[in-house]
């Protein structure tokens, strides 16, 4: 008989294990952090903070469970270059663990097939970790960069592309399940042209439209990739010029687009030298990129306060 075919009592899965984002405010938004055993996508335009958040997760995974971590090493697969090693080093020097960089394995993927073979060999790394810590966080930054070139916009190539999506997602989910790991995949966005909802005229998730830098966008790779992830988070940014007219600053938000365990919710965050951190909801003036309606904002802030309670 195949392993895993015996039924499990769901009570054994309680309490649900989570990986902290390294910030209590953002953790509250996600009810404790990113869930173990499933795939979370972080989508956003460039410079929205995706990679910053991923780097912070690598360090958070090393924390002991008492501080929301997994006491685990991590695997970071990047397809965007170069790997931000200086930033990681800066972040790690402010964290408590001295040898944290020893427990972060970095690999580069240049194509979808490259990623697949990398994930296949990663089984060995996950099953027999080279250090005393298990490897329980896998980050792919970003999935969209792998698919940017090789495929045409015709039915045959789109079909091939979506086969690959499902193959990659199935492998990541299998590893999430077998090794109890958190899987994070980042995604880019594409502009939405015209008045139709989403990319194919189809709304996906809690928001009828997503905005970033004043543009209407949606996560890249279309509907079939959206079927491959369990949770989708969206990061957006907006540059604001201060009242005195001189300096401009960037405001950023995280939104829950869909998740099996979370309601619609959002939170503003900042990126500072020490990393990514959320802003307490009461201090947020609710203008999500300046486009959401008043009703929606009221609901979102209600959600947050109930989570806080």
């Amino acid at each position, binding site marked *: 008989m195949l392993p895993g075919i015996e039924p499990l009592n769901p009570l054994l899965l309680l309490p649900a294990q989570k990986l902290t984002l390294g910030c209590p405010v953002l953790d509250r938004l996600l009810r404790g952090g990113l869930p173990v055993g499933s795939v979370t996508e972080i989508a956003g335009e460039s410079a929205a903070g995706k990679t910053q958040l991923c780097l912070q997760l690598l360090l958070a995974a090393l924390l002991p469970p008492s501080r929301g971590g997994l006491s685990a090493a991590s695997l970071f697969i990047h397809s965007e270059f170069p790997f931000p090693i200086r930033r990681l080093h800066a972040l790690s020097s402010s964290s408590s663990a001295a040898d944290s960089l020893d427990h972060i394995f970095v690999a580069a993927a240049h194509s979808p097939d490259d990623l697949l073979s990398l994930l296949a060999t990663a089984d060995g790394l996950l099953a027999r970790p080279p250090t005393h810590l298990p490897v329980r966080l896998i980050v792919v930054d970003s999935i969209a960069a792998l698919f940017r070139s090789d495929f045409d916009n015709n039915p045959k190539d789109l079909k091939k592309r*979506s086969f690959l999506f499902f193959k990659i997602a199935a492998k990541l989910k*299998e590893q999430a399940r077998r090794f109890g790991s958190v899987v994070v995949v980042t995604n880019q966005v594409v502009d939405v042209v015209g008045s139709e909802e989403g990319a194919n005229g189809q709304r996906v*998730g809690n928001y009828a439209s997503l905005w970033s830098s004043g543009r209407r966008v949606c996560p890249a790779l279309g*509907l*079939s990739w959206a079927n491959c992830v369990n949770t989708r988070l969206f990061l957006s940014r907006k540059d604001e010029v201060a009242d005195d007219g001189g300096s401009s600053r960037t405001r950023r938000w995280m939104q829950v687009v869909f998740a099996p365990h979370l309601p619609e919710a959002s939170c503003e965050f900042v990126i500072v030298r020490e990393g990514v951190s959320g802003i307490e909801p009461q201090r947020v003036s609710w203008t999500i990129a300046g486009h959401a309606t008043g009703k929606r904002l009221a609901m979102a802030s209600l959600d947050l306060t109930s989570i806080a309670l």
Partner: protein
Amino acid sequence: MSETSRFRSFEGGHGALKGAQTAWDMLSGEQMQKHITTGCEELDAILGGGIHCKEVTEVGGVPGIGKTQLGYVYPFQLRIVLKGSEVATEAYTKPYRIQLAVNVQIPVECGGLGGKAIYIDTEGSFMVERAHQIAEGCISDLLDNTAHRLKDFPACPEILQPNSFLANIFYFRICSYTEQIATINYLEKFLEEQKDVKIIVVDSITFHFRQDFDDLALRTRVLGGMSLKLMRFAKKYSLAVVLLNQVTTKFVEGSFHLTLALGDTWSHACTNRIILYWNGNDRHAYIDKSPSLRSATTPFLITGKGIRNATSHCKRVRMM
């Protein structure tokens, strides 16, 4: 053979045509049939009282629309309904509201005859904390609706605990299509031992079959075999089967259309088909295919407690 003797041999259920049943027998069987509710009365109403036992129901929609939420709900509501069914079957032909009332009288008797559920998770979307939350929602609704009745019965608190609801789910986590096929095959034996399983939820039937299947005809055959098995389980053990499906875009005559995954042949595999979709900012459910139900659509809400009516009155249900 005379007219009478031929009639008699059929009545006995054997003879010329083994296992044959008269339409009359089938009708009375149908009227005895149990439904499993969602907690959203409007959705139950367009389904004719809820999801039907002995049938395979497919639920499809875009990511984030609430398929999995619906998958969570059934195993719990099931516990409630089944407890009622043993006592007052005739109540089930009456409107669904009565069901709830009946359902509640029974936990009090504490027979512990609640049904069990099989949840086959192929995508990793089963979040036990959310399931726990929905179980709590079910229980609190149950108590609210029937507080005035409950005082007539001795309390039975241990049955009305979210954990005891969760413990009655057999959870299978599947990581490949071979495992999925093997699990469905294994259910054959499993159901033989676990006769009180009353629902099988597969979330989703699709995921592992959308990878590189070079031979699409093979995929169709494998899926066909699986759906036949599930249909047989549904009949044999009178349980409900709920299959969640994804949506995909299909290329027809130069443009892309939205459709449920797995192709045209698959669409024959299920008795009923419900499609969940966005209408503005509202979630709607639509009966796309059913041999016995009218085509209808209704809004619904996903709340902390589970699936609920979008409106306080049932006026927004639209029959077509």
